[in-house]
């Protein structure tokens, strides 16, 4: 029996850019929804204008990054300088069940496309808005990308060493917290509408999602007045606990010893039974007291061997360890390969390369990604003739009016 796509027949108009808007709609597309991604070269998606680019060519369709966030979607490109472009937007709105936008609050209103206007035409629409700090409030007009949200949500403050300025995590880290919340809310709202016939406006603040991940730290301030700060890789209840250098250049292994059997296992694997009897290291409290020395001793061992070997020897002995995988390492990681995480798809312009698969497997429902993200305006005819039901003549008129890119 052929498996049914979960969201077959669900129609989505995607006016989003960057990550937090497009990703939930990509997940719905990957599970069968019909998603039309609307773009414009007057306001190019930052993910298209950033690299890496195929062959180093800085063009909107040469970004290898954009297609990964927009798999399984159809692409339409509008020239926003043409007033009739708004006609097309309204056709999409009348067609869709779900609309997504990620503009600064007030932008959709300037085009008359905000929730209040749309809901008059589509009373049961599910309208997904996301931005940095929410649709209202004194900082609603805050300008920023994922790294700004990461700064505001405490990520940088809590990363790095106490004796120097904060470290960072590469890129738009906070952008990858919010979509998980957004997708859960979106699909719950879809289920609610299925049962009640009622849609609604989903207003997702990226700051609020990031803050939710930090809730215990914020509560520590409220309840105890404590301002937690960065402490590199130390843990309050484990030692050794950290990242240690291995034999290769820029090769590291993460090691975490959380109880007595793991500590004995560690000492066996390192061929240092004396560490288990050493008064400086015998108990957890002793290891915490002598943590700097301990870390130096551990590093003096790990430094001699490749990271994968340290990991497999420690794990075999019974101590938690994990290679600090870079991307090359992820592609060669046997567990990631077993899960089939990296999927190869063919893109209309840049050809075949890798995409992220789903982190969860559904035992009975098919899952994408189904195809690579679209080139600019790649599916003009599919969208206008097939999905929106325009006639050839109608389409020709709009083309003559230079509405499309």
């Amino acid at each position, binding site marked *: 029996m052929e498996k049914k796509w979960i969201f077959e027949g669900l129609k989505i108009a995607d006016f989003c850019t960057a990550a937090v808007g497009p990703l939930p709609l990509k997940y719905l597309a990957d599970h069968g929804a019909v998603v039309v991604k609307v773009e414009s070269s007057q306001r190019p998606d930052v993910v298209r204008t950033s*690299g890496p680019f195929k062959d180093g060519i800085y063009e909107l369709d040469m970004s290898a990054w954009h297609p990964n966030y927009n798999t399984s979607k159809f692409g339409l490109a509008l020239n926003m300088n043409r007033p009739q472009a708004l006609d097309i937007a309204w056709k999409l709105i009348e067609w869709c069940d779900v609309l997504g936008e990620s503009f600064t609050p007030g932008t959709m209103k300037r085009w008359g496309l905000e929730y209040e206007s749309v809901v008059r035409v589509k009373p049961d629409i599910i309208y997904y808005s996301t931005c940095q700090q929410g649709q209202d409030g004194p900082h609603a007009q805050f300008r920023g990308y994922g790294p700004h949200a990461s700064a505001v949500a405490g990520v940088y403050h809590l990363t790095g060493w106490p004796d120097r300025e904060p470290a960072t*995590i590469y890129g738009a880290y906070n952008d990858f917290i919010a979509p998980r919340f957004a997708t859960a809310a979106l699909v719950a709202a*879809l289920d609610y509408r299925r049962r009640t016939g009622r849609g609604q406006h989903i207003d997702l603040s990226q700051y609020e999602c990031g803050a939710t991940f930090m809730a215990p730290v914020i*509560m520590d301030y409220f309840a105890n007045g404590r301002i937690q700060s960065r402490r590199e890789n130390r843990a309050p209840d484990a030692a050794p606990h950290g990242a240690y250098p291995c034999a290769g250049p820029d090769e590291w292994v993460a090691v975490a010893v959380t109880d007595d059997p793991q500590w004995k296992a560690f000492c066996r694997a390192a061929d240092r039974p004396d560490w288990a009897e050493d008064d400086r290291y015998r108990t957890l409290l002793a290891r915490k007291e002598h943590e700097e020395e301990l870390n130096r001793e551990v590093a003096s061992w790990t430094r001699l061997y490749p990271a994968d070997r340290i990991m497999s020897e420690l794990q075999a002995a019974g101590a938690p360890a994990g290679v600090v995988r870079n991307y090359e*390492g992820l592609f060669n990681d046997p567990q990631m390969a077993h*899960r089939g995480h990296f999927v190869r798809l063919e893109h209309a312009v840049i050809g075949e390369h890798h995409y992220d698969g789903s982190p969860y497997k559904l035992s009975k429902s098919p899952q994408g990604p189904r195809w690579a993200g679209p080139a600019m305006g790649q599916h003009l005819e599919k969208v206008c003739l097939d999905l929106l039901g325009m006639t050839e003549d109608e389409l020709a008129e709009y083309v003559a009016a230079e509405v499309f890119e």
Partner: protein
Amino acid sequence: MASEPMPHTLLSPYRILDLTDEKGLLCGKILADMGADVIKIEKPGGDPARRIGPFYRDDPHPEKSLYWFAFNTNKRGITLNLETTDGQELFKRLAVSADFVIESFPPGTMDRLSLGRRCLEKINPGLILVSITPFGQSGPYVEQQYQVTDMILWALGGVMSISGDPDRPPNQISFPHAYLHGGAEAAQGAMMALYARSVMGRGQHVDVSIQQCLPMCTMNTMQYWDMYKVNLPCGVYKRGMVRADGSSLYNPRLWPCKDGWVFLMVGGGALRPLVLSSEALVAWMSERGAAGGLEGCDWEAFDSTTITQEEIDRQRRVIEPFLMAHTMAELYEEAIKRKILLAPVNDPKGMAESPQLAARGFFVEIEHPELGVRLKYCGPWVQLSRTPLSAWKRAPLIGEHNREIYEQELGLSREQTITLKQAGII
């Protein structure tokens, strides 16, 4: 349907049995916050996750863990020993009328307890089983019984390699996030299976790998390897611009200011918001007579592929002292007014005192009668126009709802529940 009252929350019809530990608590919380009836099931005496700090008034008591409070809002709680036949029977009785079971046991545990997929499917074909584990239900690391902590997964998931500074070991965030990504992704997967059930009339298994949740957090590092066979080095983002060939210029985005640091992007070119931001920054500096050589700079012409280190250094020599003359709060307020792409490096106090979060009603106070106080929590993580996240109950005490569930709902007598309690079954 017309005669039924409209439900006030998204997930009111659904019941969820939550067997997770810290690897999956957030999943049940997200679903409980959206209105599902989530029953947290702990072993008698309480879940080990109650040992995770910080603690209320630094008292490391199982009913005072702020971590437990934060990630178990809106759940009810019972105790149950699944290693016993009585425990397994009671669980199966609850599973008959549940919509979801969420668990984070080592793969194979549910089968060993006679509570695996096949068994649950027979009892309740509509039941959705969500399993949240480090690597998924199978594979080499599972067969070899690899042990993990949050940090180990942060490393194996690729995020650690790009967190930190270039001259020291790579980092985790001091409040670890790997498990939280797994829990949040599991909530997404659970909802997918819920909608699928309405399409095909049956439940299914949602098999979440926490490791697989993490590579997405590294943004476009995958494409740097895929396209150019370049592994982005640690600390590269703070350092500055990464070019197509993987080389970088020193153009840090973290800038010191009078009382801390700010994240600020300076540049332009094809990115219009960045052009406007840089122009606005220069305009502000100009008003203060501090724009120096940046007066009249053409940010549209900024080309990240050809700009030299000397030009960048010239820009920094103007901007740095200007930032050092202002506090994070001053810079933040002006940035919002002037549309400058600048954010303060907030600490927990900054977040707790955020006027934006306060205005949005993000912080909620919840009663803790057992402590005699109201505690402030992070509340609605999304604003919904029709079904707001407006009900906020504290996390359950150990076995708090044993009577409600075992006696009132399952019809056990008081004598029976006392027997079960004494035998360590509940």
